[in-house]
């Protein structure tokens, strides 16, 4: 599964994207967030509890309880500020 980070989360994690293979008990986005936090201090900071960020599964915004089954690409990003 590919994980991508955008805007300040990319700088904080120190990566634009990474290939990960979480264990079988990582079933939702919330599970993935908790699992990713352990990868580095940057991950822990960017994905900290209470931080304002959202997620997408395969290019579509998804809530944190969305199941990861079949996901090719999961993205994390701060609130959008376009327009």
């Amino acid at each position, binding site marked *: 599964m590919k994980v991508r980070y*955008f*805007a*300040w989360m990319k700088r904080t994690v120190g990566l634009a994207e990474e290939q990960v293979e979480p264990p079988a008990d990582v079933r939702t986005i919330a599970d993935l967030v908790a699992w990713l936090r352990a990868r580095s201090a940057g991950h822990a900071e960017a994905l900290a509890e209470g931080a304002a960020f959202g997620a*997408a599964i395969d*290019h579509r915004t998804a809530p944190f309880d969305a199941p990861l089954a079949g996901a090719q690409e999961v*993205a994390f990003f701060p609130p*959008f*500020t*376009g*327009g």
Partner: protein
Amino acid sequence: MTVRVQEEDFDVGAELERLTQANKRIGGLTVFVGLVREMHMREGLHRDRIDALTLEHYPGMTEKALEEIEAEAHQRWPLEATLIVHRYGRLAAGDRIVLVAAGSPHREAAFEACAFLVDWLKTKAPFWKLEDTAAGEKWVGAHEGDAEAAARWEGKAKA
């Protein structure tokens, strides 16, 4: 229905000409052009002028999000033509960021649909602004008013 995400500038006149030509059912066309505004920011003792910003986006998701927003507008209003062009990359004060247009037989629908498209793209399309200030880079925080503006269209029935 057209959505484009591009680094280069757009030609407003040419875009609108292309959008309306050969469609004689359009009585009103409402257009929004968003521009980089020169701003002064106060932080502690410092007062910085923001002269430029960098727009990052999520290729692939951005186009999909904009197309969904556009399709939603067509669901809600009788539209003959819509256009969204959004730039990314480095932009200086005075530069165009986004062009949104909605054409309808009726001006009320054109106005409402254009406002809707702008409100929703601000909160539902994956763009992020990074401001360049003399003191360094600063990611722009989400504007509370934007969420409110977007929310006024939630659950609204077709006009």
